[in-house]
Every structure is written in structure tokens, then in C-alpha cells.
């Protein structure tokens, strides 16, 4: 499925030991925050959460390729690992799961991460538009900003994904379509979702290069994403990456996977844990040792504690924001409603 011209992948030097360790630290931080968030939900700290257990390599690896000075990332509701890798303020990010603000409290323009997107396939076209904007704006150094857009195997069924692939390819827009094929869309397995069995296989029909990769191998993910970015950045048009992974947890904290898949199926489908795989590899290659792993875990724990404290401290947003943030230029009708609301809620 590797239809990306090799020539265009040039310039991607192998990852250094320091980078490999950084990737591991990121994956541990993400894993720890992710599993903690489930605990938070059980403890009533947050009302719900969509875990990404098992997708750390795909998320950290792809997010690692982003240049936040010029690229822009379009997540779904499950890209916590990408956000963390990009250095987004994680209290502001996780606030969406506290139900503080749909889309999150972080500043998307500064973070270069679009607001959390709850519509399946909702932002894939936005990425194409943003990317075409880079082409229109032009570039002084021949290097375009690249849009990186995430979607799932389930989302691949939406018409918007097709329109996005076609628009991007017709316009040669610098987009990297990053599909996390995690085997499931809530209760529906990929084989009853994705006709033909592979999202990457769709790309050829648009004359678009594609890579289907082991999404649980973080190094493979970084390398593939970098190749794709180099291709798009140079003005050669979009690339599709299908990272094969597995949704190890429930769809969300309100889902009950026992209704549609057995524990045996889960074990078989999931394969080896990407974090553990990477750990073994670092050990085998002598790049990291147990002390490093312990340190990384400790850092992850400290980080999670800080984020939890931040989340717990988050109050509700003031009701005036309901009215004030609708428009850049408010309207008399909205102001009247706001005044009415203020009056009636102060009475109480």
C-alpha cells in the first residue's frame, strides 16, 4: 500500500536516541493521562471520556511530525495524544471532558490544533480548505504549511471524507489525511464498515499516494508521517496514511464493549501493547534503561496530578459567554435575550 514516491520522502533522517526517548516519554504521559481520565470519570471528576488506549503510538508518532510554527492539526474527539505531543495546554484540552466547553478551552489558533470535533468526519474538509489557503498564500521558501487531519475507520464512510479527498487531490492541497483504523466504530467492526477492507486503498482512486502502516509502531508512524509531510510541504499534493491500530478500551466511558465483542476477540485483535513494544525495543537497542522508564513514569504521574488539579479547579463558565461568544458583532436580538436571561437568573 506504499504508493508514496520514495524520492519525495527524502530528508527524513533516522530518529536520534534522544528523540526516541522523548517519544517514549510522550507515550507514557499520554497512556497515564488516558487511563487516569477513566478513573476520573469513575470518581465523578469528569462526566465522560473517550479513551485512546492502544492508539498512543499512532497519535504520538503522527503528532511528533508536526511543525507548530507552520502546520495546523484537525483532530476528532479522540486525539488527546496528539494534543499532548503538540504541547497543547492539557487542562484546557481536557476541560471538554469536564463538560466545561465544547471544543476545549485552549486557543486553537495559537495551539495550531483546531477545536475538538464531535461530528464524525466534520473537520476533514476544513483541513483541505486551510491547506488550499497555504497554496493561495504562497510560500517564500518553497515549504508549505501542511494540514494534518485525523479521522477513523468509521468516519471514512462519510461523504465528507470523499469530498475532502477529491478536493484535496484536484487542488493538490498540502494535506496529510491520517486515518486511525482502530478496528471499530463504536460496535461496528471495520469489515462491516470499510468495503474492500482498507481506507488506504481508496487513495489510489484519487491519484493520491497512500501508506498503510503499523500504527502501533511509533517509529514507523513518525517516519511515515514525516515522509507524507515532506511530500505535501514541497507542493506535491495530499497523502493518505492509514495507521492500523486497535481501540483497546470502550468507545467512551458510557460504552459497554461486552455487548459486541468478547475479551478473547479483544486480545486477539489488539495484538501487542504499543507502549510495551516500544519499551522492549528501546531496551534491546540500548537506548533506554529501567531507570529512564521509571523516571518517565514518575514524570507522567506528576503531570497527570497537575492536570487533575487544574481540571478539578475549573468552575463552570459564566452564562454571559453563551451570548457573548456567538458572534464577533453581536445583535440587538441576542443582547435582548442576554439581558432577559440576566434579569431572570438574578431574580432567583
Amino acid at each position, binding site marked *: 500500500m506504499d504508493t508514496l514516491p520514495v524520492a519525495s520522502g527524502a530528508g527524513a533522517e533516522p530518529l536520534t536516541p534522544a528523540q526516541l526517548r522523548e517519544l517514549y516519554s510522550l507515550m507514557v504521559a499520554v497512556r497515564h493521562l488516558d487511563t487516569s481520565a477513566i478513573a476520573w470519570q469513575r470518581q465523578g471528576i469528569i462526566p465522560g471520556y473517550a479513551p485512546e488506549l492502544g492508539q498512543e503510538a499512532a497519535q504520538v508518532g503522527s503528532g511528533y511530525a508536526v511543525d507548530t510554527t507552520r502546520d495546523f492539526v484537525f483532530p476528532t474527539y479522540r486525539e488527546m495524544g496528539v494534543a499532548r505531543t503538540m504541547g497543547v495546554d492539557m487542562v484546557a484540552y481536557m476541560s471538554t471532558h469536564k463538560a466545561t466547553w465544547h*471544543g476545549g478551552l485552549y486557543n486553537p489558533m495559537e495551539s495550531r490544533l483546531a477545536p475538538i470535533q464531535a461530528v464524525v468526519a466534520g473537520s476533514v474538509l476544513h483541513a483541505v480548505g486551510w491547506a488550499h489557503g497555504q497554496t493561495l498564500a504562497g510560500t517564500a521558501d518553497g515549504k508549505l504549511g501542511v494540514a494534518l487531519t485525523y479521522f477513523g475507520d468509521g468516519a471514512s464512510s462519510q461523504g465528507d471524507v470523499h469530498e475532502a479527498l477529491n478536493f484535496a487531490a484536484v487542488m493538490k492541497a498540502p494535506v496529510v489525511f491520517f486515518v486511525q483504523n482502530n478496528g471499530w466504530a463504536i460496535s461496528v467492526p471495520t469489515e462491516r464498515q470499510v468495503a474492500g477492507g482498507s481506507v488506504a486503498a481508496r487513495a489510489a482512486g484519487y491519484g493520491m499516494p497512500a501508506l498503510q502502516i503499523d500504527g502501533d509502531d511509533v517509529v514507523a508512524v513518525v517516519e511515515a508521517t514525516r515522509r507524507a509531510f515532506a511530500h505535501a510541504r514541497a507542493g506535491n499534493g495530499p497523502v493518505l496514511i492509514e495507521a492500523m491500530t486497535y481501540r483497546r478500551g470502550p468507545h467512551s466511558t458510557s460504552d459497554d464493549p461486552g455487548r459486541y465483542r468478547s475479551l478473547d476477540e479483544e486480545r486477539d485483535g489488539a495484538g501487542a501493547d504499543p507502549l510495551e513494544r516500544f519499551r522492549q525495543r528501546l531496551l534491546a537497542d540500548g537506548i533506554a534503561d529501567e531507570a529512564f522508564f521509571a523516571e518517565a513514569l514518575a514524570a507522567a504521574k506528576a503531570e497527570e496530578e497537575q492536570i487533575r488539579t487544574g481540571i478539578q479547579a475549573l468552575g463552570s463558565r459564566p452564562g454571559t459567554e453563551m451570548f457573548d461568544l456567538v458572534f464577533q458583532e453581536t445583535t440587538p436580538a441576542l443582547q435582548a435575550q442576554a439581558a432577559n436571561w440576566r434579569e431572570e437568573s438574578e431574580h432567583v
Partner: protein
Amino acid sequence: MSNSILEGAAAAGPARSAAATTTAATTTVMSMQQALNRALDEVLAENPQAVIFGEDCGRLGGVFRITDGLQAKHGEQRVFDTPLAESGILGMSVGLAMAGFHPIPEVQFDGFAYPAINQIVCQIARMNYRSRGTMPMPITLRVPSFGGIRAPEHHGESLEALFAHVPGLKVVSPSNPHEAYHLLKYAATRPDPVIFMEPKSRYWQKGDVDLAHCDADGGDPTGAKVMREGRHLTLVAWGAMVARCLQVAELAAEDGIDIEVLDLRWLKPIDAEALAASVRKTRRAVVVHEAPLTSGLGAEVAQLITQSCFDTLKAPVERVTGFDVPYPSGDLEDEYIPNIDRILFGIQRVLEYKRG
């Protein structure tokens, strides 16, 4: 309206069994989820052409479990999962209807009906007309609707004004388990497309369900329904707001204000006569809905009342609704959805209105 006598029976009750079990004691206690599930079960049993499908409707039984157990009982041909594409689901419904089926698709959440609007408005709603009556569209689209469950974005939308504006659609919303059971059975046997808006915040509320008939007169559940009689003011509502209005009426009664609560039930066609009959008596009306104010269905209801009761009305019809803002997150939901206080303020404005 005492539930307690039958509560025990209902707990072990037949909520998921087939239709044929109607006994002498036809009243039972169910949640709305159970009532809807039972209605679908019976529709499948009674009409071999009925098919249910959508995202996660099959093995999972739907994210709200409304189709729970139906695939196991009626088979994968009758109840099946589709790929994740709402336009696909509704577009496919058109073809199934043409092939003689009665499709009962589900859109997983209200906010995800938007990708299907093109198929709903341009195809489903018009096909009977376009084909000059030769291609009826007996499609019952179930849409878990409205807010009140602190859900993520797009999971708390109120699309009734949009649907009601579309020629060729009928729109209905039940307010309690009893209505849910009967209105769904009625809707799902109609030869025309019906949008069935389920108030998701009421799914788990239990109530008496008289399986034998819906309304006291035993007729078809086609119009609005007086849920509480009153003399001083008519509260008009639908879906989850009906229960809230009943609460409000109880509170108002403590102050000696006698409120009539009208469950509109059908949001298209609207029962203009029921509105007129009630307001002719009470001479005052407040309409309550969750959707944003502007161009909401409350405007239509208010205007229908004003048209028929202009001379009797003591005050302009008041609207207590969601604001013209995107559905908010978390705690702000309580500010957005008409709450008891805001409804009471609306009532107060009408009662205190003085011609000037």
C-alpha cells in the same frame, strides 16, 4: 395516575416480549426506553416488511438501547447495522420503501441528522408527490432528540422547526412512556414519512402505559392532548418540556393559578383546533420549547393561537425557549433549557399583562 400498584409487576414485566401478550390488565409501568423497544418489537412482529437499521442499532441495540434485543429476536435481515453515514442511511431508506419495505431508520443523535437533511428534504419528503402518489414513503425516522443529558456537542439539538417546515413530512414527539409506545406504533404503520423525535432525557423515566389504547376516546393518537386541565392559562409544550410544564403547573397551583398543560404531540400537522379550544377557555398561553427562540416552532404555535383567539386573548402569547445560541456545554445547559423559574416568569408576564 398512581404507578405504585403495578410497579412490582412491571419490574418483572414483559417490556421486551412480543405483541401478542395483551392481557386483560393492559396497564403496566415502563420506562420510555422500554415502551419504545416494545413498540418496535411489535411493529416487527406485525409487519414483515418493517426493517430497522442505523448506526449500532443491531448487535449493540443502539446507544440508548431502544433497539435492544431486536436483532437477536427478529434476525439480522430485519434489524441491521449500517456503515457510519447518515445520508446513506436515509437515502437507502428511499430505495427500501420503493422495494416495498417499511424502513424504520435511526439517526444516532439529533445533531447527526444534518448530514441527512438533503435526502430527507429533497427525496423522502417529496417522493410521494414527485411520483404522483405511486411511490409512497412509509419511512419512520427515529431521532433521539433535545437536550437535558449534559451530552457532548451536537447531542442535544431540537430540529422540530426545521422538520415542521418541510412539506411532505409529519413530525411527532412523545412526552412519556405511554405516549411513546402508542405514538411510535402509530407512526410506524403510516404510509407517509414521519420524523419521530424521542426526548432522550426522558428515556429512563418510568410511567404507566396502557397498552390497549392511547387516548380516552380510543381513537388514533393524531392530535394534541390535554395532560392537565386548567382555567387560567394554557402551557403548550412537547417532548421533555411537557413533564416540566406539569411540574410548573403543580407549583403554580400552590399559588391558586390553575394551569392547563397541552402536549402538542404532533409538531406537523399541528392540532390548531386543540390550541384554540384550550386558549378560548383560558384566554392566556405560554409556549415552551428547548430550541432557540427565533424561527422556532413556538412562533408558529403562538401565531396559530393568536389567529384563532385574537379576541379572547388577555395578553400576547409568551414564548419561553432556548436562546439563539449554540447548545452549551455542562452546567450552562441549565441556563439554556427553559427551567421552572423561566417558565414561571413567562407565566407571570402573561398573567400580569395590562393593556396599555
